[in-house]
């Protein structure tokens, strides 16, 4: 088996001149949980549909286990899909829905019974075999859709925003459950979402996409701590993004001051994006501060306060447990590794 179970090479896709995917290069390893993350219209669902066989790329090659599968129709691909609105068969009960793929494959009814029963246990709905699909709640339908796909023992499970229609609490629950199902059955998941938190908590690898292009591929920790550009920084978590000038390696200036940082390899006096996470600020006495500003507003967010601090050139978003009053003058402090420098894109 090759290291790359699915490999997309130079994939382009356009619909009548409108470019949807622009030179996508991406591979998925066996048993990996990969998330395609991006705002709506970024091409993540199209990428998934190309893997599933529902779309053909305008150019480029799709490999599965080393073999080119561009022209393989969906029913011959060793992948199964969980669709956004589940697409369950309403004229069948739960058992028949899950058994559907196995019956098409002409598996014997005894084997089907075992496998469907096991699946119902896996998704924690052991007594639901005879239920009508339309009588189930959204969360339950979701689980049936997952079981209906997994029962066929696919090499890869494709999931297209499967939790999109669920409320927040149920979504959190299903995130944990999906991750544990993936670990139990030990297969590859390719997961599409626009929810950055979902991506961070579940994935082994995140692929951030925007406007048909891959912005960054990395582990959740990499993507969060070392965003490659201002888009990724802004999309994953919250960020302060402003212009700065890179005077030399490890020295950047913004807001009229020089700051030490850890980045190097920029041209002398290159204009760059400076990114600072709101939670990375330290609030310090004014005499120790690098930046001094006035509190414009403060909002209680639960674990922290969101304080907007206006300095001469920029209004900073700061997350802190510090209780500030509007109108207060406060000092901010940044250590070199709090400051992220990015090329202008």
């Amino acid at each position, binding site marked *: 088996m090759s290291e790359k179970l699915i490999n997309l090479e130079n994939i382009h896709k356009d619909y009548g001149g409108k470019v949807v995917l622009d030179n996508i290069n991406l591979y998925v390893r066996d048993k990996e949980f990969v998330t395609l993350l991006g705002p709506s219209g970024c091409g993540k669902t199209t990428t998934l549909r190309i893997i*599933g*066989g*529902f779309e053909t790329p305008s150019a480029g090659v799709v490999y599965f286990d080393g073999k080119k599968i561009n022209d393989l*129709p*969906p*029913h011959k691909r060793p*992948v*199964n*899909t969980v*669709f*956004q*609105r*589940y*697409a*369950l*068969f*309403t*004229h*069948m009960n739960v058992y028949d829905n899950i058994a*559907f*793929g196995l019956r*098409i*494959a002409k598996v014997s009814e005894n084997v089907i019974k075992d496998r469907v029963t096991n699946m119902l246990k896996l998704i924690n709905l052991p007594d639901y075999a005879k239920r009508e699909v*339309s009588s189930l*709640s*959204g*969360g339950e339908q979701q689980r049936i859709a997952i079981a*209906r*796909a997994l029962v*066929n023992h696919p090499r890869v499970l494709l999931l297209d925003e499967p939790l999109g229609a*669920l*409320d927040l609490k149920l979504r959190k629950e299903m995130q944990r459950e999906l991750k544990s199902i993936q670990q139990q059955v030990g297969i590859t998941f390719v997961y599409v979402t626009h929810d950055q938190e979902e991506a961070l908590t579940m994935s082994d690898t995140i692929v951030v996409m925007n406007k048909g292009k891959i912005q960054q591929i990395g582990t959740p920790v990499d993507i969060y701590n070392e965003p490659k550009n201002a888009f990724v920084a802004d999309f994953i978590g919250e960020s302060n993004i402003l212009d700065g000038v890179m005077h030399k390696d490890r020295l950047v200036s913004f807001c009229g001051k020089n700051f030490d940082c850890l980045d190097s390899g920029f041209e002398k006096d290159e204009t760059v994006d400076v990114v600072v996470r709101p939670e990375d600020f330290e609030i310090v006495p004014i005499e120790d501060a690098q930046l001094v500003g006035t509190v414009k507003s403060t909002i209680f967010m639960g674990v922290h306060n969101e304080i907007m601090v206006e300095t001469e050139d920029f209004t900073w978003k700061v997350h802190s447990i510090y209780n500030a009053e509007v109108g207060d003058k406060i000092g901010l402090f940044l250590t070199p590794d709090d400051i992220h420098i990015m090329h202008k894109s």
Partner: protein
Amino acid sequence: MKKKSTFSQRLLIFLLFFFLYAPIIVLIIFSFNSTKSRSVWTGFTFDWYVKLFNNSAILSALYTTLLVSVLAAVIATIAGTFAAVGLFNMKKRPRDILLQINNIPVINADIITGVSLCVLFVFLGKIFNFKLGFGTLLIAHITFNIPYVILSVMPKLRQLDKNLFEAAQDLGCTWMQAFTKVIIPEIRPGIVNGLLMAFTLSVDDFVISYFTAGSVETLSMRIYAMTKKRISPEINAISTILFVTILLLLIIINVRQAQQEKASARKRAEFENR
């Protein structure tokens, strides 16, 4: 706020339904009258119904009507279902235009459909050497039934999850299997309604049949022919049977539709509640 209806409002409703249904009620009552009188009640009898079933012309007309209705309904349902699926998968603009064209025969006067089909059949008959008869009658019935089938299947297709077809393919179905094992069962209620509707329209039709049947006679044509001679109460009897049959079919169609609407409303409500 519900206002109590006034006396004049009730009277109006009563008169409306009275004039709508009084003729039919009179007809039904006098189909059981023991003499030929159409004004004096002389006693109850089933004689006219018995006579009806000994009248070979009526029986053969009944046979023609049932045969043409069943065949036309089945063929129109198959053709209309495929047409609806094809239309549904078209781009929006051509689909909307074709659906409008599909609606024209529905709102068009029967007499125009009848005359135009007659003209067409006579014209083609000259070229290909055939005469008006059962064949042309059947084709005419299929033609006017198809738009109704499309109209009853289309909403079911619209209700389908847009990924349903792909889900079936994803689970190993070929294109054809996805269609027969998933799409057809999912839209079956619409197809059955279309079938019943087509059958009802065929049984009911007089005008189009009159222009396209040639020497063949359907039940409604037979009744019309009977009125030209001395009016026999047999007409009352056969009309009663026809009326009751159509009424039953319409009730079945309406009950089915109401049940389906209730079911889909319940589903929608559930989806919104979760």
